[in-house]
Each structure stands twice: as C-alpha cells, then as structure tokens.
C-alpha cells in the first residue's frame, strides 16, 4: 500500500527536513516552491516609502511517496525537523497513491519503491 505525504514547510527548514528524512532512510522525494496562506497572517515588506502587506508567503512543498508502513516514521521526522513554534510552520497532508512505476526499470507497485540504503533495507538488516 502506498501513500503520498505532501508537507508544506518553511523555506528555511527544507534542508533540515531533508536531512531528517535521510537520517531515517527515506530517500525518494521531491520539492518545489509554493506560495501559501494559512493561519499565518502574511508579512510586511518595505517599499520605497513605507511598508505594505503581502499575504501569500513562499513555502516549500515536499512530496514523498512511500509504503504505508513507513508513513508514521516519516511524519514524525518531518514534524520534528520543521518545527519552530511560530505560525507558518506549515501543514502535512496524506493522500492515497494507487500505483507506481519506475521509468528506468519498469518495476511496478510497492516494489518499485526501494532505494539503496533506505529504511526498508536497514530494517531487514
């Protein structure tokens, strides 16, 4: 069974989160920039003369597709490494994934989700 984690976090936490995930053996992932709005109010910027308010703030979204058995470990790693305690820390969504295929090998299904040195390999050792 596969899940996708979509974690929307602070820009400046992205290295910490990636490191925390690699630490526990989550290898496959990708990131992209989004501009978001949630409980956090926005930020005040300085213009030529005086300030103004910007409401959509840059965030990084990390997408990770993984086996359901690794979901909780990954969530915990993100929750810890992305935390500052200020509004704007972000939010994590979990969505279903029905299938996966690796282009190079045509491996299909959960079996395609193995990476050298990853969390499953470690567990089996």
């Amino acid at each position, binding site marked *: 069974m596969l899940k996708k984690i979509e974690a929307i976090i602070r820009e400046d936490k992205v290295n910490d989160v990636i490191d925390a995930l690699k630490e526990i053996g989550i290898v496959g992932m990708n990131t992209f920039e989004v501009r978001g709005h949630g409980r956090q109010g926005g930020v*005040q*910027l*300085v*213009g*030529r*003369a*005086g*300030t*103004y308010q*910007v409401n959509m703030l840059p965030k990084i979204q990390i997408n990770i597709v993984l086996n359901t058995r690794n979901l909780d470990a990954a969530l915990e790693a993100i929750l810890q490494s992305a935390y500052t305690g200020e509004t704007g820390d972000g939010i994590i969504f979990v969505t279903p994934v029905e299938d996966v295929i690796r282009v190079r090998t045509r491996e299909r299904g959960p079996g395609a989700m193995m990476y050298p040195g990853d969390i499953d390999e470690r567990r089996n050792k």
Partner: protein
Amino acid sequence: MGAQISAGDTAWILVCCSLVLLMTPALAFFYGGMVRRKNVLSTLTLSYVFMSLIGVQWVLYGYSLSFGPDISGLIGGLDFLGFQGVGAQPNIAYAKTIPHELFASFQMMFAVITPALITGAFVERVKFKSFLLFSLLWATLVYDPLCHWVWGQGGWLKEMGVLDFAGGTVVHIAAGFSALAFAMVIGPRKGHGKVPMEPNNIPLTVLGTGLLWVGWFGFNAGSALGANGVAVNALVTTNTSAATAGLVWMLLSWLDGRPSTLGIATGMVVGLAAVTPACGFVTPLAAMVIGAVSAPLAYYAMRFRERRKLDESLDVWACHGMGSTWGTIATGLFATVAVNADGANGLFFGNPAQLGIQIVAVMVTIVFSFGMTYVLAKALHVSIGLRVSPIEEDVGLDISSHGERSY
C-alpha cells in the same frame, strides 16, 4: 578670442555623450525592476524606444527647434534641420572649444532621456501606439521649446538670467510634472491600492541606479562643456548630493520599518536629480545640504501621492519633479561665483534677486509642462485612447503589446 577646438575638451564631451546615452538603458532597468514580471519588457521598451525616436527626431528638426537662431525668445529657427551646418567648427554661442556637432550630439542625449523619465508614470497600462504619438508630440511641443527658453541663445528664461546648470527645469521638473499630468489622465492600474504590486526584480533597479549614477557624471559634469575646474566641481557636487540623499533615505525608511535597498537606490537618484541644476554653481558642502533636504522632500511627496490614491506609478513627480524643484530653488540660495565665474551669486551670497528668478523659472516650467501634457494626454485619451483593454492589462503588456515574455 573665439573658436579654438581643444582636444581635451572634445575628448571629455565625446565621453559625456557616451555616459549620458548610457543613462537611458540605466533608467530602463531602474524602472524595469519595479514593475510586475508581466510588464518588464514593455517597461524596458518604453525607455529604449527613445534612443531611436529622438535619435531621429533630434537630427531631423529637434535640435534646430531648440538651438536654432532665436525667434522672439520662444523657439529656434529651422537653420539646423538635418544637422545642416552643424559641423566640426565650434558654435561660439554655445561652446567655444568643441565642435558644434558635438554640442548638438551631447544635447541629443538629454533630449532622449527626458521623455523616457516620464514613462514611469504610465507603465503597465499604456497603449504602445498612443505612447509613441504622445512622445513625439511632447518632444516637439514641450521639450524643444522649453529647451530653447532655458538654454537656447536668446531664449527668454536664459535672458532673464536663470541658472540651470544641467537641466533641473528642462529635464527633471518638466518630466516630473508631465508625469503627474499624464497619470491623472490615464488613471490607476487595475487593482492599484488593493493588490500589493511587489517589484519583480529589485536587483535590476539597483543595477540601473549604479549605471545612472555613473552616467550622471557625464550629464552634470559634461554640462561644463569642457574638461575644466567647473566640470570637476560639478562631478564632486553630484556625487556628494547623491551620497547624502541615499544615506538620509536609508534612515527614513529605517525609521518607518527597515533600511530598504529600494529606498537607498531611490534616495540616490533623488539626490542626483536635485543637484542637477545646482551642480556647477555650488560647493560640495552646499551639495550635501541639497541632497539631505531632497530625500525627505521626495519621501513625503511619495507618501502624499499614495494617500491621494494617485497612481503615478514609479514616482517621477516625487523624485524628479519635487527633487529638482528644490534643487533649482536651492541654486538661488547657494550659488556662488567663487565656484563658477560664469554663474551668479545666490541669496546666501548676497543676491536675493537670483532666488526670485529661480522661482519664476520653476513656476513657468511647472505650469507649461503640466498644462501641455494634460492637454496632449487628454486629447489622445478621448480620441485613440491611452490605455490597453482590461484584459490586455491583466495578461500583461509583454505578451499583449509585444508578443514576448521576459523570463
């Protein structure tokens, strides 16, 4: 003694042509960084196009209208059409030690950048065709006459004795108040005052600022029309005013929030605009005062403009118009013949009359440029229209007017 070409003076003014030409691209980037991404190319083009448009107009008839033989103090005659008779010999009335054609060419660069300054008023919404038409009319009916009045042999403001070393009235006040008039006619951008319009690329603006400063040395020190002590003094006062205004603006924006990069850059340009009429007549310490005062003046003019919900988008009026209004008046305060024997003394050196003359020149320039621009813009607005359609404005002028995307 008369006309004798100096290779040194000629070298310097040849360089100044290059430096002042550089200011138009510099301005394009100064402006281009502050608009939204969908209008970057459009904004760049609005400035660049003057290198072509006035580059042709000036040779054909612009120079002649501005500097041709005087007709009742109001306009130049047509003797210099197509640069005829504008050759390697000096024109003693204007510059004794450089070829006449060089004087004409140096003046061309001023004629190019002045209307480019105005474009800050109407970026992100102007219709390109109407803009071209307006620009040609403005150059012919506003710039050329004004130029003749202030700098042309026999021009009535020149005869009156106004001191305007490098274009406080002709260039900056004229552009600033024309910008104001145009903005009032064309109306605000969609969403102005509601949606924040964040500058898309402040480094471009910063680049433009640096190049503007460099080019301004040619603009101001070149206006001495020779490589001499007056030129040197103009360079130093120019630098000093820009430096001071940048510093003061930094402090102002710090007080209101944080020391902003855009603020420092803006302050520098305001200091440059303010000292332009004065640079060849005042001391470096006076330039420091001129710069220091110009910054809060433009800063609060900008806030005033914003409160009035007027979308004079890139603040040509506040920066150039108000900056140089102050600078032209300040020339009437700080000017001293100790700096420039061909100048005059100002109020602080015992000649209050000069201040009066300066104020008259400022007022004439304001009324003339504002009035003419308002009429021209209005006429175009009701005839062929000044604005793109709302959909084109939403899409952005890069795509809708030029069929291109910036980056």
